[in-house]
């Protein structure tokens, strides 16, 4: 299984039946493919509708129904549309059980940086700052290290923050971690990954519980 699928599959098992969830662009979007059949979540798209469905059959695209990344999607039965103020009222008002986002950096205090690299890449925050501020649970889904092999989980973020002390869970291809008041707790390790390996690729000291679970896919 490729790393990104492993991450998406683990995130997909976090949700409870009835949860309203917003998935960020990229890897987080793929989480929707792996939600267990018995768990019915309501996917919220910040550009203005609920119950995001799968991509339509080729030729069946509706130009007015795309996700926040501009990709053609569908609206499932029971979905509805709203303006951007209502969409962000849902986000900011605590009506989302969870949001899943990628990260450039996340640190042991739960700080998140994912919207700009000064002098290099400034795409803008889009809806990310609102999602981080408003969702009841902030889940980071990302590959554990950068393309250069540098840790993305650090003691203290260097990059400009998207939100301060808001991250709850971090899922990478190596493990499943929880941000606690004391630091980052390693709850599960992916099969074949050792504590030494994940720690060596992490910029913050991981807290090790008595029992570390297996991060099944």
């Amino acid at each position, binding site marked *: 299984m490729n790393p990104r699928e492993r991450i998406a599959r683990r995130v997909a098992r976090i949700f409870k039946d*009835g949860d309203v969830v917003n998935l960020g662009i990229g890897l987080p979007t793929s989480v929707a493919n792996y939600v267990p059949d018995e768990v019915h979540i309501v996917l919220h798209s910040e550009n203005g509708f609920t119950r995001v469905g799968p991509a339509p059959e080729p030729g069946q695209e509706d130009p007015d129904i795309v996700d926040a990344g501009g990709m053609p999607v569908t*609206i*499932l039965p029971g979905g*509805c*549309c*709203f303006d951007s103020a209502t969409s962000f009222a849902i986000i*900011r*008002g605590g*009506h989302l059980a969870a949001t899943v986002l990628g990260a450039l950096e996340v640190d042991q205090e739960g700080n998140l940086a994912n919207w700009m690299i000064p002098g290099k890449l400034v795409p803008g925050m889009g809806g990310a700052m609102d999602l981080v501020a408003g969702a009841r649970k902030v889940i980071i889904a990302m590959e554990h290290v950068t393309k250069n092999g540098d840790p993305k989980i650090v003691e203290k973020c260097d990059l400009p923050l998207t939100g301060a002390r808001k991250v709850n869970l971090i899922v990478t291809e190596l493990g499943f971690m929880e941000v606690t008041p004391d630091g980052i707790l390693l709850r599960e390790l992916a099969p074949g990954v050792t504590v030494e390996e994940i720690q060596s690729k992490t910029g913050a000291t991981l807290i090790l519980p008595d029992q570390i679970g297996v991060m099944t896919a």
Partner: protein
Amino acid sequence: MNKVVTMAEALSRIKNGQSVMIGGFLTVGTPQGLVDAIVDSEIGELTLIVNDTAFADRGVGKLIACDKVKKVITSHIGTNKITGKKMHAGEIEVELVPQGSLAEKIRSEGAGLGGFLTPTGVGTAVEENKQVMEFDGKKYILERPMGADIALIKAHKADTSGNLVYRRAARNFNPLMAMAADLVIVEADEIVEAGELDPDEVMTPCVFVDLIVRKESPNESA
């Protein structure tokens, strides 16, 4: 997820002493079945958040007439003589809020805001004990958000997942209150299956709604 329950189930979720927002303007858009069920119940000591206190024998006013309410936050009590009487007798606390500020305070809670600045009430008793801020020579009162334990909402149509449609002037405070309470209970004239409402027709997204009861027809309640 089917959110439709019986009136008894819905009622069992409302507790003594809770704060309850109820939609409606005078009697239009009031979930009268839910109101009447509370009137007939043991529930009391409520803090009511309503646009107005309607009439002593109709609308939310019945709750005041039958002593279910210790405090009411509202914009107008003039149509219900019993509210004024109980207020002057010290039997009920009344907090008056300008109608637009009341609507916006409720929306503000539902939208996760910490409040808003409004010109309404500047230079009047409404600004007492509130922060006044000035920008470009214009003064604004800082109003804080207002939520509740329970919201009772009247919809024209609901689907089983909680998407709501209102009708004409019966919309009023209902969509706002549906955003701002811990538990949102809807009384609907008509309940349809999820998927039967057009996505563009829905006025309150299902994500705000917890429970739905069907409005009883006069026949059924007899």
